[in-house]
């Protein structure tokens, strides 16, 4: 039998129909939807008189525009309110399960999928959101789709797809103290560039990836799309199975044991070939900070803001010049000399328990610096929020001067009231530092949760390795 990669195994298992020279029809095991990219899909379906084929495999949640303050108050944003109402109506009419903003299980779509056990190894998972790559941490083929494809999956439970190339991203060795999953993925994007994985499905391998918790693996897979690869995956192992056992939608008892046996086969065979391989050494990665307007514009906290002339390519020079102008930064500035206005710890990249625990450990007994206008903690889900409160993390944060909020996408995308004001600078644990991402003319620096927490305490970026960071994931 031919040796296969993990991606090829999952692909082959999901082919419904194929013809030579044409894209294949692929079965979709789980379809996640949210208020932002689904209304037009439901409208299209209705206009054609089509039905949702498998409402039982479709899960809806309100996350992008939900308020993170008091949800019992009326929704002020009329456009957001209409989208919430449309989602509730569409789900009620079609029988799709909905976690609305008052559900105890509500949260960011990519947080609650794994948290509730909807996400399981070997599945194909899609969602009208590019960070669907997160679910790949469980050895699934998971990727973001547009609204027309959302409509296609609602109607057929399938997608028309061409096979991607395979990219093996191997991270060898051990992570140094203070270096997290976020730093690993930012370093990878810095190396391959934001278009480096275009046309590929990435598989993360190597000792440093294996050593990560599920929370850490999800952080890595989440940002695969920022390196251009639509999907990223990690082969499931005992860490994965231990995480899954007992979650609401995961099979139980004998069914679970049988599932685990099946899941154990989900790994790349010895001798299977990838189209491309990239290798990084974990020992060489330091805590990362982005300085520009895309996630590939990144350096170690020990570094400096680059000079456009450091780049050979003319397009890169122009892009750097324009990014520095937007960010209000001078070439050569040490990263640790950059002051911060606001801190955001949240998003589908870094709002899980490991992230909150590590940040809380760092800020315990300390206080947010005077120049910090706002420091937000937005748990990824209400489930995470409840568990964090049980552990007393909310008190640690509020006593340190942070605001403790309700779950949602929040300041990562600024579709609710949590917006970064013009020219203000954030230390943000989110995934995109594009122009205007967190608010028009705002300046985003992407960092890990402990780096963001440390910046909140110091008022500027600091090397987290100088802090007590024993519990970092």
């Amino acid at each position, binding site marked *: 039998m031919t040796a296969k990669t993990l991606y090829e195994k999952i692909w082959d298992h999901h082919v419904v129909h194929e013809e030579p020279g044409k894209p294949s029809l692929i*079965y979709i095991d789980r379809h996640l939807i949210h208020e932002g990219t689904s209304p037009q899909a439901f409208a299209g379906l209705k206009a054609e008189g089509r039905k949702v084929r498998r409402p039982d495999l479709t899960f809806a949640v309100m996350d992008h525009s939900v308020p993170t303050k008091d949800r019992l108050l009326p929704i002020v944003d009329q456009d957001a309110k209409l989208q919430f109402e449309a989602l509730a109506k569409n789900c009620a009419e079609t029988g799709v399960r909905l976690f609305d903003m008052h559900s105890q299980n509500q949260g960011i779509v990519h947080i609650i999928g794994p948290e509730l056990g909807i996400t399981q190894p070997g599945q194909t998972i899609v969602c009208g959101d590019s960070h669907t790559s997160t679910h790949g941490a469980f050895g699934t083929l998971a990727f973001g789709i547009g609204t*027309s494809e959302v409509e296609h999956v609602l109607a057929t439970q*399938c997608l028309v797809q061409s096979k991607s190339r395979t990219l093996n991203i191997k991270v060898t060795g051990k992570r140094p103290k203070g270096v997290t999953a976020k730093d690993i993925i930012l370093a990878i994007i810095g190396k391959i560039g934001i*278009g480096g994985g275009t046309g590929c499905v990435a598989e993360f391998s190597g000792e440093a990836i294996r050593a990560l918790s599920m929370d850490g693996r999800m952080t890595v897979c989440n940002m695969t799309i920022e390196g*251009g690869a639509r999907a990223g995956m990690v082969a499931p192992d005992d860490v994965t199975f231990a995480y899954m056992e007992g979650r609401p939608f995961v099979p139980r008892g004998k069914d679970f044991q049988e599932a685990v046996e099946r899941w154990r086969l989900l790994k790349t065979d010895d001798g299977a070939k990838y189209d491309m391989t990239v290798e990084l050494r974990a020992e060489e990665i330091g805590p990362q900070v982005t300085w520009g307007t895309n996630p590939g514009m990144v350096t170690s906290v020990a570094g400096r803001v680059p000079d456009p002339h450091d780049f050979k390519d003319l397009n890169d020079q*122009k892009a750097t010049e324009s990014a520095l102008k937007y960010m209000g930064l001078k070439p050569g500035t040490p990263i640790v000399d950059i002051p911060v206005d606001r801190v955001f710890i949240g998003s589908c990249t870094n709002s899980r328990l490991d992230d909150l625990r590590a940040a809380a450990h760092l800020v315990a007994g300390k206080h947010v610096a005077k120049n910090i206008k706002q420091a937000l903690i937005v748990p990824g889900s209400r489930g995470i929020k409840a568990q964090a409160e049980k552990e007393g993390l909310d008190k640690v944060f509020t006593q340190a001067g942070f605001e403790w909020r309700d779950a949602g996408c929040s300041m990562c995308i600024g579709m609710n009231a949590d917006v970064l004001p013009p020219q203000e600078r954030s230390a943000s644990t989110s995934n995109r530092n594009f122009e205007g991402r967190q608010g028009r003319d705002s300046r985003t620096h992407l960092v890990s949760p402990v780096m963001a927490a440390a910046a909140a305490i110091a008022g500027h970026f600091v090397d987290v390795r100088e802090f007590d960071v024993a519990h970092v994931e």
Partner: protein
Amino acid sequence: MPLDKVNVDTDQMVPKQFLKALTREGFGRILFYDWRYFPGEKPNPNFVLNFPRYQGASVLLARTNFGCGSSREHAPWGVKDYGFRAIIAPSYADIFYNNCFKNGILPAILKEEEVDELFTRTEAEEGYSLSIDLPSQTITDKHGLKYNFEIAPARKEVLLKGLDDIGQSLLHATAIDAYEKGHTATAKMYETVDVKYYSNGR
């Protein structure tokens, strides 16, 4: 219209505040919103889309990795609604590229040096125009320039015939049924969860 910038992301095409729509219409007016307008919606005369010479343009000339970032289909809806029928660039981000075909936009791929040449010609000559012929996969100008562009045959067919791809997939309904019957382990939902977990089950 030449947009001389690498890695243009979909957040720039349609910023977040416009993602709260319920329809696919009207995104042309806000395409490239933050670059195109000063706060208060006063047009920014320094942004290329506002140059008088490019008004009414139907071809968008772009750089590497065009359309990266968010999967929002609002981006191609904006491109189309503005009046662009084709994009020419050396490369595109995967999701955006796919979304273009769902909306009848041709994202043509040329070599980097060919795109460079088109930028030079567009900027040198006011009213510079190109003809794009999809069946023969060629881009020509009236000075004798002729480039061939790449496109997968199945993609080309979708654009030429304007196929309803959901309808096409539904032709395979029997195969989908058969798949579901043969893959109960993955194509089934484990109902071990209490209904209290969903809000609309109350």
